[in-house]
C-alpha cells in the first residue's frame, strides 16, 4: 500500500515500487518497549479492572489500604502466584498442567514426613523440591514421548497424586513441624518483608528474566505460537517442553514448602483447587490458552486480583453464600473486559 513505510534499501536493491525512506526504520520509544515487555499488551488491559477493584475496596473498606493488610494480601497470594508464574510458561507454550495442586499437597506432606522422621531440615526441603521436579519430569516425558495431550496427562496425574496423598497420609494431617529452621520459610522475614513474599518476588524475577530475556523464553513462546514452525527452524522442542513441566512441578513443590511451613502442618486436602486458581490467574492476566503469548506481570495481577477480592469479601464481612458468586463474576468480568478491549483495539487498527 502506498502509505506503508519501507525499510531503507540499498541503491542496487531498491525495487521499482519501494518508497525511499530515511534510515533507520521507525522504532517504538524505549519506555513503551519496556512497558510492553514488562506487562505485555494484554496485562495492560487487565490493569484497569484491577485498579478499579482496588479503588472500590479502598473506598469501602477503611482498613484495605494499610501496610498490614497489603502484607496480608501479598502473603495470601504467594502460593498460587508462585505456581502461576511457572504455569505461565506451560500455558504460553500451549500446554496446561492440572497436577500442580496435588503436587503441592504431596510434596508438602513428603517434606513433613521426612522431617518428622528426623531427616535434616534442609535435606528434607531439598528432597521435597526434587520430588516436585520429578513429578514434572514424568508429566513432561509422558506428554513429549508418548504424545499424550497435556490436559489428559496432567489430569490423570492430578487424580493419581491426590490418591497418593490420601494413601500416604491416611487422611490425617502431619503436625508438629515447629522446627525453627523450617518455620523460617513460611513465617520468617528479612528486613520486615515476609520470606514467602520475597520468594514470590524472586520467582517472578527469575521467570521474567527467563521468559523475556533469554532464548529459552523465546523458544517456549515460539512453540506456543507455531509448534511446527518452531520445529522447522531447528528448535529442540522435546527438551524445552519437558523442562517447562519440570519447572511447574518444582514451583508447585516450592508452594508446598511455603504452605506447609506457614501452617506448620502438612494437610492432605491442602492446595485443593489450586490448579484452577492458577489457570484463572494466568488467563485473567492475558496469557492465551492457545499459547504463543504470555504476560508474566499479567499473571501477577491476575493472582493479586483474586487475593484482593477474597480479602475484600472478608474485610466487608460479606455473606458467605455470596463469596463464590462474587469471585466467579469478577473472573468473568475481568476476562470479558479484556476480550472487549481487544476487540475494540482490533477494530480501531
Amino acid at each position, binding site marked *: 500500500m502506498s502509505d506503508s513505510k519501507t525499510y531503507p534499501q540499498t541503491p542496487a*536493491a531498491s*525495487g521499482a515500487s519501494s518508497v525511499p525512506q530515511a534510515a533507520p*526504520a521507525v522504532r517504538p520509544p524505549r519506555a513503551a518497549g519496556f512497558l510492553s515487555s514488562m506487562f505485555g499488551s494484554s496485562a495492560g488491559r487487565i490493569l484497569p479492572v484491577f485498579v478499579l477493584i482496588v479503588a472500590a475496596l479502598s473506598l469501602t473498606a477503611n482498613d484495605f489500604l494499610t501496610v498490614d493488610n497489603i502484607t496480608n494480601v501479598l502473603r495470601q497470594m504467594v502460593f498460587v502466584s508462585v505456581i502461576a508464574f511457572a504455569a505461565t510458561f506451560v500455558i504460553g507454550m500451549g500446554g496446561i498442567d492440572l497436577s500442580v495442586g496435588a503436587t503441592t499437597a504431596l510434596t508438602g506432606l513428603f517434606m513433613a514426613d521426612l522431617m518428622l522422621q528426623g531427616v535434616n531440615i534442609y535435606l528434607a526441603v531439598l528432597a521435597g523440591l526434587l520430588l516436585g521436579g520429578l513429578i514434572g519430569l514424568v508429566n513432561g516425558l509422558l506428554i513429549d514421548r508418548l504424545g499424550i495431550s497435556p490436559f489428559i496427562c496432567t489430569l490423570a496425574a492430578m487424580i493419581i497424586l491426590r490418591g497418593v496423598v490420601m494413601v500416604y497420609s491416611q487422611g490425617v494431617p502431619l503436625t508438629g513441624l515447629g522446627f525453627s529452621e523450617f518455620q523460617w520459610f513460611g513465617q520468617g522475614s528479612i528486613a520486615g518483608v515476609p520470606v514467602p513474599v520475597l520468594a514470590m518476588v524472586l520467582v517472578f524475577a527469575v521467570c521474567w528474566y527467563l521468559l523475556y530475556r*533469554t*532464548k529459552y523464553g523465546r523458544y517456549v513462546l*515460539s512453540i506456543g*505460537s507455531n509448534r511446527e514452525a518452531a520445529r522447522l*527452524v*531447528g528448535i529442540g522442542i522435546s527438551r524445552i517442553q519437558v523442562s517447562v513441566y519440570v519447572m511447574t512441578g518444582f514451583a508447585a513443590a516450592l508452594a508446598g514448602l511455603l504452605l506447609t511451613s506457614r501452617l506448620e502442618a502438612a494437610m492432605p486436602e491442602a492446595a485443593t483447587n489450586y490448579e484452577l486458581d492458577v489457570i484463572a490467574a494466568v488467563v485473567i492476566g492475558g496469557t492465551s490458552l492457545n499459547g504463543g503469548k504470555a504476560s508474566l506481570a499479567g499473571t501477577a495481577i491476575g493472582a493479586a486480583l483474586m487475593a484482593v477480592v477474597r480479602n475484600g469479601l472478608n474485610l466487608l464481612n460479606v455473606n458467605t453464600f455470596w463469596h463464590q458468586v462474587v469471585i466467579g463474576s469478577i473472573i468473568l468480568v475481568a476476562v470479558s473486559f479484556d476480550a472487549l478491549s481487544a476487540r475494540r483495539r482490533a477494530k480501531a487498527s
Partner: protein
Amino acid sequence: MRGITKRFGATHALRDVDLTLFPGEVLGLVGENGAGKSTIMKILSGAYSKDDGDIRIRGEAVDLRGPAHAQELGIAIIYQELSLFPDLTAVENIFVRHEKCRGGRPWILSPLDRGAMRDRTLDLLREDLGVVIDVDVPVSRLSLAEKQLIEIARALHSRADIIIMDEPTEALEAEERERLFATVRRLRDAGKSVIYVSHQLDQVVGLCDRVTVLRDGSHVSTAPRDQVDVASIISLMIGGSLEEQYPTLPPPAEETVLQVEDLTLARDFEKVSFAVRRGEILGIAGLNGSGKNALVRSVYGIRPPDEGTVTVAGRRVTIRSPKDATACGLAFLPAERKTEGVFTGHSIRWNLTIAGLRRTSRLRLRREQERQVTDRYASELGVKAASGEQEITLLSGGNQQKVLLARWLAVDPEVFLLEEPTRGIDVSAKADVYRHIADYARRGKSFVVVSSESPELLGICHRVLVMYEGRVAAVLDAGEATQELIAHYSVQRAEEAADE
C-alpha cells in the same frame, strides 16, 4: 459495480472502482498484492461494506447487508483458504445450513434426509461439474482439487450465479488445474458468471474472456482477452515495465556442497541420489506425490530417511531432526507459510531472528543485536513494513516470505532447501525473491528449489531434477530443459521414455 470506494483509516483501499460482469463470462481480476482485488471481492460478497459507490445486480441497485444477504442474491465466493469443515463429508459440507429434513416444517431437531442430500450431491458433482468424488469420507481425506470442486458444488447448490474464485489454482498440480479450468468453462457455458482472481497471469489470459487490472486501489484497464498478453498485463499492474523477471545466473563452482546418495524413505521415495555444487541452484520438479517434497523434508530431518547417506561440505552427516539439520548448515523454507513458517502474533524481529538464536552460545537475548540484524536483512530484501516491531501477519504474503527467507540468510547456512518459495506472492515480490536467490548463489550459497511451477524452475535453476513415483526420472540442464520436457518426465521415467 460503479464508483466503489473503501477506506481503512486514512488509507484508500479502493478509489472509485468500476467493475462490470456479464452473464456467461469469466472475468479475470489481476493486480499486485494490495491493489484492492480482495477488498472489492469482499465488498461484493458482503464481508465488507463499501464507503461509496453503488452495486447493481441484474439491473437492480442493491445494498448488501452481509454475507448471508449476498448469498441470497446468488453471489458465492470461494476463498483462498478453503472454508470446508475438514471432518465432515462432502455431502455434509455442501448442505451445511441448508440441510434437507424429513417431514414437514424443518427445525433444529428434525431428522435429516441423508439419502436425498447424498443423491443431490452426486448429481451436482456428476451433472454440473462432470466429476466423481467419494462423498462419504471426511473431506480432509480428499485432494485439494477435489475440495475445491466441493466448494464450487456448494456454491452451485446455493443457486449462485456469480461465483468468485480467489487464487484457486495456487495449490494445484498441472492436471488438477486443467480439470478446474474445464469446470470453469462449463459453468460459463451454463450461463454463470465467474470472477477469477489470480496471480497466475498466463492462466488468466488463457481462461478469461476479459481481464480487469487494478493498481493501488484504482481501476487501470479492462480489456478482452485477445487484446492483452502477460507482458502487457504486468506492465499495467506495476505501472511501468518490469526488469527481467528472472535474474542471470552466475556459474556454480566445482566443489560439491551437498551430496545425497541412495536416499530411501519407505512409500515416499527410493534410492534418490543427487549433488549440489557451491553456488548452484538445483530445481526439483514432479507431480504431487512424486516424492519431491518428502525428499527435501527427509534431507532436512523432518522425517529422517530409512537408508542412504547425506554429505554436507565433504562431511558425512546423520540428520535425525531439523535441529541436526540446522547444525549441519542446512536451512529449510516450508511451502505452508502460515502453518509451518510464521510465528503468528509476534513481530518481524521475532520471526526473523528465531533461527539465528541457536548460533549464539549465550542464553541471554541481545535485543540491540536483534534489531540490527532485523534492520539489515529487512532492508536488504526490501521488506515493506512500519518497523521491525510490526506483527508479521500484518504484512503481505510477499513480505512475509521475505522475512522467512531472511530468517535463514541471517544464519548463513551452506545449503538452502526451498519449498515453493514464491507461492501466493505477487509478481514483483517474486522477482525480488528470484533476485535474492541468484544473489546469494553468487556469494557461494547453494539452493535446492522444489516447485510445481515449471517456468520458475526453468528461470532460476542451473539444473532441474524431475521426480516420478519416488525416483529420479531425469536431470535436465538449464540449457536443454523446457516445460514440455519437465511435464514429460513428470509422468514417466527416463528409461521408459527412451523405450518409446
